Each structure stands twice: as C-alpha cells, then as structure tokens.
C-alpha cells in the first residue's frame, strides 16, 4: 500500500490509527468544524486538532428529528455521528458560528447530555473584516485559549506556539507544492488524491503528515511524468471532504487541477507570519485567510481567488458545487457563475447532497454534459 492509499483509508472512517496512537500516549484530541479555528493553539499543548465531518454516515434519522430537512445534509450527518456516539474518542469539540446549519448542529449536540463531550465550545467569529472585528476575534480566541487551558491544565506559551506555527506552516508549504505540481502540464496527482491529502492533514498529527507528504513528494519527483490530455477543472463551493465525488467527476475524462474549497486551497494558501509575536500573528492569519462566503462584503476577494486558481492551473472550466440549503455558497456560486462566464470561463453549478456518492448518477450526467459542452 502506498502512502496515499494509506491516507485514503484513514479518510473513510471517523476514527483512524493515528488518532488511536495519539490517545494511547495519554494525549487529548479536540474536534473542530471550521477553518476559522486557530488549530495551532491546541497543537502547541499536545492536543490534536481533528476536523469533524460526517464521513461514512449514510442515515441521518436521529439528527433529522432535531435539525430538519431544510438544514444541510453535512450538518445533519455531523449531528447523527455525534448522537450515535461516534465522536466519543474526542475530548471536546470547538465549533465556529460559521453558518446557520452548523451552529445549530453544535447546539443540538451540546444539549444532548448523552452525546455532549467534556469540552463543548463555540468560537464566535465576526462576519466582517475590519480592525474592530479583528480585536473582537482576538479577544474571543483569548477566551477560548483560557477555557481549554483551564479545562485541560495546559499552558500555551510563546515558545510552544511558535513551534506549532512552524509545523503548520510546513504542512501548508508542502500541500502548496502539491497544488503547484497539479498546475503543471501533466499533473502527478489526481484531484481525488489531492483531496485525500488535504483531508488527511486535518485528521492526524501534522508532523507525521509532513513526513509522509515529504516522502510522497520525493517519490513523485523521481517518477516520469505521464502525458495528460484530460479536461482540466477547478472545483469551488461548499464543504467537500469526499474524494469519491471528485473520482466520479474525474472518471468522465476530466482532471481536477485546483480548487477553492475549505478542504483545499482556501485553508492552506495563507501562512502565519513567523517573524511576528506568535499569538497576534496567528489570529491575524486566521481572521484574514481566504474568506468563506460567511464573511460579508468579501465577494470580490473570493472571485479573485477562484479566478486565480483557474488561471494558475490552466483550467478549462469550473464546477461550482454546493450542498442543498447552503445559502452562503449557493448565493456566492450564482454570482461566481455570472462573473466567470463574463470572462468566457465555462462553469457548471451543481447542487448536491453530502455523503459518499450521494447523487452520483445525477452528478455524472450533468458533468458529462458539461465536459461535452466545453469539449
């Protein structure tokens, strides 16, 4: 089994051997659900940040009785896993008020005494970028830090934080190399493989991940390049941690060469400034990183980011996907489509459900027609 296959296996279930190994050392694991959480604070004190998703959940009937059919299937799958005690290996969960669905998912989880974890916390992130907003965010991050320091009897220091920042920056640099290679004429990674790498990085210790990715990159560098004439696509939109979705698209004769996803480029593109005071630098990095559609008034920046990904990866078109009922991405996608088409970039909008191969047939039909159109 090669390294990517091994990582891929870890992405298919909620708990994985890296988490088990971490816990066997008596260390804590903290779930989180959004890229606005400054993970390095946890990693600095040997708490493993683990990104919560609903992977592997195929039935959400328990969650449906608390959330509803108008709440997105991602939030419902996460809640289902929580109510089913599938996150019991976590020592806590930190959510962000990212959208209406996920914050209500958190509240329902927290309210269920049988499912709630020992540490449940929501980090309120402002919805606008401004200096006042930044100060608010920094205060909130300080409050969060104080809360978990007290709960787990740990102390974030400038030294351990600096070290964690360096590790995380290294992860982002390595993943950025993957994106650079994909942007070349003959991408050595498929889009599905790239998604596996990014997803895996959120589920395991970053230092171990960095070692593995370094090995993968060395192997790739020595491997002869294969000619690739496939239609090159960029994927942007809602939460997507499902490599099978990308495989489904790529099986039709396309290759995904970049993305603008929170399980993707948006989470790795910005580094933390290692020459500044670490706590402030970290807060600034997270507050100002490539914005999610939840950040009001930042559409132009999001548009530029998608356009930049299309240009640098020489993409032939873009898939704008969103999970049904996700108004944040649904609305953004509508605007992205108008703007990209104005620049003669072919675009397809795909409404989807969260989950492995959910809607696979419909997605295939639509993508196939799109590929024929852009030929």
């Amino acid at each position: 089994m090669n390294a990517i296959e091994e990582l891929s296996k870890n992405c298919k279930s909620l708990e994985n051997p890296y988490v088990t190994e971490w816990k066997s050392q008596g260390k804590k694991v903290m779930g989180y659900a959004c890229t606005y959480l400054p993970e390095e604070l946890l990693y600095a004190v040997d708490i493993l940040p683990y990104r919560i998703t609903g992977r592997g959940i195929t039935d959400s009937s328990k969650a449906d009785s608390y959330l509803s059919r108008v709440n997105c299937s991602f939030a419902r799958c996460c809640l289902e896993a929580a109510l089913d005690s599938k996150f019991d290996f976590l020592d806590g969960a930190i959510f962000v008020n990212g959208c209406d669905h996920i914050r209500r998912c958190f509240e329902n989880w927290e309210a269920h005494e049988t499912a709630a974890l020992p540490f449940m916390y929501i980090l309120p992130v402002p919805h606008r970028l401004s200096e006042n907003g930044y100060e608010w965010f920094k205060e909130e991050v300080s409050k969060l830090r104080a809360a978990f320091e007290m709960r787990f009897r740990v102390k974030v220091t400038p030294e351990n934080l600096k070290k964690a920042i360096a590790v995380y920056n290294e992860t982002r640099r390595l993943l950025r190399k993957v994106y650079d290679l994909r942007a070349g004429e003959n991408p050595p990674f498929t889009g599905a493989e790239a998604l596996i790498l990014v997803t895996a990085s959120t589920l395991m210790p970053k230092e171990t991940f960095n070692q593995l990715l370094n090995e993968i990159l060395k192997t790739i560098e020595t491997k002869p390049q294969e000619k690739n004439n496939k239609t090159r696509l960029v994927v942007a939109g809602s939460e997507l941690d499902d490599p099978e979705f990308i495989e489904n698209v790529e099986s039709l004769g396309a290759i995904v060469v970049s993305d603008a996803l929170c399980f993707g480029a948006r989470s790795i593109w910005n580094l933390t400034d290692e020459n500044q005071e670490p706590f402030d630098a970290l807060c600034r990095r997270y507050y100002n990183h490539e914005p999610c559609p939840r950040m009001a008034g930042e559409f132009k920046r999001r548009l530029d980011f998608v356009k930049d990904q299309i240009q640098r990866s020489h993409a032939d078109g873009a898939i704008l996907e969103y999970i049904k009922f996700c108004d944040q991405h649904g609305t953004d996608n509508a605007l992205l489509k108008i703007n990209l088409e104005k620049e003669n970039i072919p675009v397809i909008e795909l409404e989807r459900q969260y989950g492995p191969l959910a809607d696979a047939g419909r997605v295939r039909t639509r993508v196939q027609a799109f590929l024929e159109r852009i030929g």
Partner: protein
Amino acid sequence: MNSQPKALERMVEAFKLGSFIPEDLDFESPDVKLLLDSLPERRREMFITMAKDPDTRMISNVFNQGMGNYWESVLTAKDKGKKVVFIPFNFSPEIFYALDMVPVGVEVLDTMTMTLEEGISPYLDLSIERGLPETMCSAQRAVVGMLEAGVLGKPDLLVNGALGGCDPNTKVFEYMGEKFDIPTLFIDVPYYHDKRSFKYYEQGFKEVVKILEEVSGNKLDEDRLREVCSLSNKANELAMEISDLKRHVPNPVPNYYNMNHLATKLTKLGTQDAVDFYQMAYDRSLDRFKKGKHVLPEERLRFMFMYTGIYFDNSFHSWFQEEMGISYIMDMLIFSDHVPYIDLRNTDTMLAGLAAINMNLPMTRQLKGKNSFHGGWISDLLYYIEKYKADCVVFTGHTACKQVWGVYRMVADRIQKELGTPTLRMEADGWDSRTTPMEVLKEQWEEFFETIPKYHGEN
C-alpha cells in the same frame, strides 16, 4: 413574465384608495355587495380583512394613508434629491429620516407586492430563474425579482445590519449589491447579547452613520435627530400601551392591528405618520376594552406565532377574529417589550439608543447567538407566552429560516416542559402560497385548535 411596469406607482394608488373607507360602511348594503363582487378574490379578501370590523377599518384608514405617503416618498425621492436606501426588517429606519434619506424595508416592499395585480409569484420565480437559489428567503426574493424585471428602480445604497442572525438575509444583500452594482454596507452583529457586544455593534453603527452622511450629503443635525427620535419614542410608547391592552382576557386589540403594526414599525418609526397610526390604534383598542369588545363570538383561544407569520394572504386575521374566536396575540416580529427608550440628551446618546434598538429587533436579538442565551429565542418565547397568556403557539415553518428550524424541537420541548403550552409545527412559506395554500393552513389550524381543551370551553 406577467409583470407590469411601475410597481411603486401602483402601490401608492392601492394604499391611497384604501385610506378612505367610511366609518359607517354597511357590508349588507347592495352597493357594498356589488363592489365586493367586482373585486378579484385576493383583493376582496384583503378588503374584508381591513374593513369588516369598524375599529380595524378606522385603524387601517390611518395605516393606509401613512403607507400611501410612504410609497409616494420612495417614488418621488429622486426628484427631490433624496437617496433611497434598502434595509432589512431588523434595521430601524429613524437614522435615515434624520438624514433626509428614504429607507425601504426590503421585506415590507416584498410583502406589498401582494397589492399588485400580478401578485408576488412571478417575481419570486424570476429571482430564481436568474440565479438565486430557491432556498433563499421569499421575504426578499420578490424584490430581487422586481429589480430583475425592471419594474423597480435601483436604490442608491444597501445597508444590512443582520449579520449572523440569518444567512439568507445577509447573502441576499450581498447578491443585490454585486448583481445590480449597488454600494452595500454591513454592520457586524456580535454573537452575544451583553455590554461588550452592544459597544461593538454601536461602533459599527456609528461608522455606518458617517458613511450615510457622505452618501446623503447631509450632516447629522442634533435637533433633527432629536425630533425623529422623540417621534420614535412616542410611537414605541403607544405600541407598548397597545401591547399592555393585549394582556387583558379577552384581548380587545383587533387582530389586523398586528399586520399594520409590523409594517409601520419597519418603515415609519421616527415619523408623525407612525405616531398617528399608533394613536388611532390605541384609541380604538382602549375604546374596545371599555366596551368589552373582542374577537367573535368569544375569545376561545389566544394565539401566538412562534416566529414569523403568514403574509401572502391576510384573510386569516379576519377569519380568526370574526368567525373562529381566535385572538392573535403576538408573533416574534412584533415582540416589542425589549425596545429601549432613546435617551434624547445628545447625538451620542441618541445614536447609542438607535444602535440598542437595532440590537433588540426581532431575529437579531433572539437568533444571532446561542438559542439558550438569555435574550435568545427560548427565553423570549417563554416570557411572551407567559406574559400575554398565549394558549397555543404555532411555528409556520417558513422554508428559509434554517436557523430556526434547526432548534425548533428544543424550543417546543422546553415550552411544553416549562409552561405546558401546546405547539404546532407547520411547513408553510410566509410569502409563497404555493408551499401550503391558505385553505390547507386553515384546515391544519382548525385541527390543532380542536385538540386544545380550552377551545371547547374546558379548562
């Protein structure tokens, strides 16, 4: 698309016509019967709702007069050199009046589309056809559709101060701003409801006021601001008096007041028209109290909407009032016990007061943060149900309200546990009759009422 030009002109006409209903109107007279028969069904129902009860009739006259003036001011703004600003329902309009600007509540404008011959549906559909997801809120989608159809002029500015309370509400402003190239301002709303949060919001509000001064070309004048805030205080005081009257069993306040109250507070607070409306509503309600008047034949149940109501068809107000004996006590959009009084001492205190009003407006107050916070949806519902003695609470299930749907069960369970008040969850869309038509809603309400012992005269 079956749309017609000049939407605002037709709204002005409709409201002006509706402001001269004679007090002694006799529904049994042949002339009135002939008039009713000549109206299309939707307009006939609307007329009956506002005109059948003599007190409602007189309150609606003043309301319609004020609304006619209001839409006329929107219509003539450009000619008068005034800037038009679109705002959401959780942004109080006073600051715009103080700066001689014209605020337009997007949800109110959306609702008023009902007065047009073609109705709201073509505009709801057009907004989707042109790109907006169908899961976005119908309370704003018709306005997007009207802009798309070209039956409505573009505003000069968009201001949204509802971030965090509702995703569709925020995103639709960003969408309108980007798609129709309209400058857009946002005020961040913090997650919490405490002193620190008020300060944060106030800071954002004051920054927006500075930009409004630039856009309007008018410097904020303290005397003018005081005049506007004083009128707002007066209107809110009267609204509170009316709410107090609602606490009586039976409730003397006519059901349709709620609808008029909602539109007035969203568009006209800070004007004399608003004070005139509330004064008339108060005088008539007090008179009804003194005369022992109430819903007919008797008050069988006191009804509360848990969140938003139904706006695509007003007929249920009079059906409740004239036939069913259902007293419509409250809904979350007209919860007003927490509206702060504006301190008129100086510009700073008045701006702080307006910011505090915004932070306490429905949805912003209850839904921006955790549901279980004090001042959150649960605590406010428990307070209002108890204080206004509601016998039943209904969640209409407005499709776009994902943040409310996401905690409905927790809320309903808590109401049942703490107060024993029955709740009903429906699946309706407040502005789109096609999701669940009024006939079906009425059937479901009746079935629900049948399950409540008090409806049958039992305790």
